[in-house]
């Protein structure tokens, strides 16, 4: 029952996102066809009224808004996100080719920065006030405060160019032929190291700090005193009593971070020319490929919704108090 309610709730959210995605570009000022003929006033391109009508009819823009909206929903339910103008291919196809790279990149780095941040944050809180805590706090916050693109460039120059141990860009070696599949996997991982490391370093600060603070407040809780009164060892208390309670705010943060991760990948994918949807987004802004942009926004919005759904489920698993409601 609970789960059905939740799913219904997320379905409504997705419907609202679809509607916004439909109405937002149509609410923008200007001519729908402007991008076809260019907006540069020095280029006196002209369209006759007949040409306009043909084009509008071709894109279905001559129909009333309600009909366009219905067409749009029907199209999406069939997996039709439109036609990319610049790439001359279906939007969904273009996105799917790129999506796997972004999922590999953000997936790997999210798992690493969450685990590492949780671990370091818990250790830091446990050693609060000690040298170990102070130094982790200072060093992690310093490197994490650097802007993503700057960090990426630094890593690229140092590990890519100077030391020459990691490739400078791309997701795999171009036109390479591999002796066996393992070699291919290793090549992909080799290309993944620097962009993933950039994202990990850029995002670990938030997780670390939140885990440290959350852990500090948990360590002051009465039930920790209660556990110590039973004669349990400090390590046991940390693992069995403290961590699960301290993780609750991290779950919320991780879900919210997914949205920011996409923005983060735009810079990282640009710096490392990594063929994911961040770079695709950047390119489609540059060449004003509106249908593709619209499709990308939709995919990003839906992945944020999915992340929230996962967070909700994790919360239910972690906190028995939420299960009741």
């Amino acid at each position, binding site marked *: 029952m609970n789960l059905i309610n939740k799913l219904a709730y997320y379905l409504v959210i997705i419907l609202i996102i679809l509607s916004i995605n439909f109405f937002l570009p149509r609410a923008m000022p200007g001519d729908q066809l402007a991008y076809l003929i260019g907006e540069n006033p020095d280029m006196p391109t002209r369209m006759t009224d007949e040409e306009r009508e043909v084009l509008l009819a071709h894109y279905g823009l001559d129909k009333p808004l309600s009909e366009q909206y219905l067409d749009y929903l029907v199209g999406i339910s069939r997996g039709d996100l439109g036609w990319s103008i610049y790439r001359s291919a279906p939007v969904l196809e273009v996105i799917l080719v790129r999506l796997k790279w972004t999922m590999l990149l953000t997936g790997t780095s999210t798992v690493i920065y969450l685990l590492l941040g949780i671990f370091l944050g818990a250790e830091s809180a446990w050693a609060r006030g000690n040298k170990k805590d102070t130094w982790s706090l200072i060093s992690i916050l310093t490197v994490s405060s650097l802007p993503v693109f700057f960090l990426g460039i630094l890593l690229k120059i140092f590990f890519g160019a100077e030391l020459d141990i990691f490739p400078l860009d791309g997701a795999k070696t171009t036109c390479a032929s591999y002796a066996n599949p393992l070699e291919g996997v290793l090549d992909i991982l080799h290309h993944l190291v620097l962009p993933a490391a950039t994202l990990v370093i850029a995002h670990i600060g938030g997780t670390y700090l939140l885990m440290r603070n959350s852990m500090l407040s948990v360590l002051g*809780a*009465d*039930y920790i*005193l*209660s*556990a*110590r*009164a*039973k*004669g*349990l*060892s400090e390590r046991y208390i940390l693992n*069995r*009593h403290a961590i*699960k*309670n301290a993780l609750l705010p991290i779950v919320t943060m991780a879900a919210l971070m997914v949205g920011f991760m996409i923005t983060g990948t735009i810079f990282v994918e640009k710096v490392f020319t990594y063929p994911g949807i961040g770079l695709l987004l950047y390119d489609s802004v540059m060449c004003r490929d509106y249908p593709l942009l619209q499709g990308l926004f939709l995919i990003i919005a839906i992945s944020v919704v999915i992340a929230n759904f996962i967070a909700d489920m994790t919360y239910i698993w*972690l*906190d*028995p*108090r939420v299960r*009741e409601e």
Partner: protein
Amino acid sequence: MRISDLKTNFPTPDGIVRAVDTIDLSIRDTETFGLIGETGCGKTVLGLTIMRLLHPAATMEGEIIYKGKNLLEASEAEMRTIRGREIAIILQNPTTSLNPVMRVGEQIAEAIRLHQGLNKKDAAAKAVEMLDAVRIPSPSQRANEYPHEFSGGMKQRVMIAMGLACNPSFIIADEPTKGLDVTIKAQIVELMKEMTERKAMLLITHDLSVARELCDRIALMYAGELVEYAPLKGIFESPLHPYTRGFLGSLPERGLVPIPGMSPSLIDFPDGCRFHPRCEHATEVCRREHPELVEFNAGHFVRCHHARS
């Protein structure tokens, strides 16, 4: 257990908090000793000092001799074998003292596994037995539930089961009836009486009616020190200290008369007798000289310049 000359201090930016100040008392093997006082007088700190569960910054002086060993000199590893097994504390506020994300049965069983070396299954079964002993209905089912599914009185029962799980010989019970309504309170008092019959217990409370039901001897604590202690009868029938009389007078059946004023901060005590600013009998000597704890009648100690029967 013999406590002598015990001082517990906390350094704070505002000065040193002297939460427990030169306390001497001994608790016999099977007696229930009541420690009574207003909020903030240092009684909870005394309980936590015995368990050595205070913040690392706290400093402790004096001796707490338990079974021939000075607990203040015991290592942390030694203390871990004593906590829960020899000496158990039933903490106040069951709602916050139970881990919200751990099943109730497991919170009892983990101590049993640790101290009695039982395996997971046997310890879980023992935990169910404990829940049954504190009269929780359908204990095997309740053991798998979480604290938020229990009412306040039931949580207090869980706390008692948790404290007594490894059959400790000394129990510290900190406000076990706090926040319970009258009928539940009576049930908990009855349960405590039965469960701690052959054990030593230090009962920390500000509820005289509970102390009267459970205690053999009672001490009154004011501003970090004991001001009077005596057998139950002595306190209720012939109280010597004005603070004790004031406390008794604030009982509902004696007219609910409050003691005027507030208890002093534990950083800055008044000169002389610490109670003198609130005492109607205070004289010049009370303002000047700090009274000693003296044995007025056999076994009846009081700290007052003007003690009279």
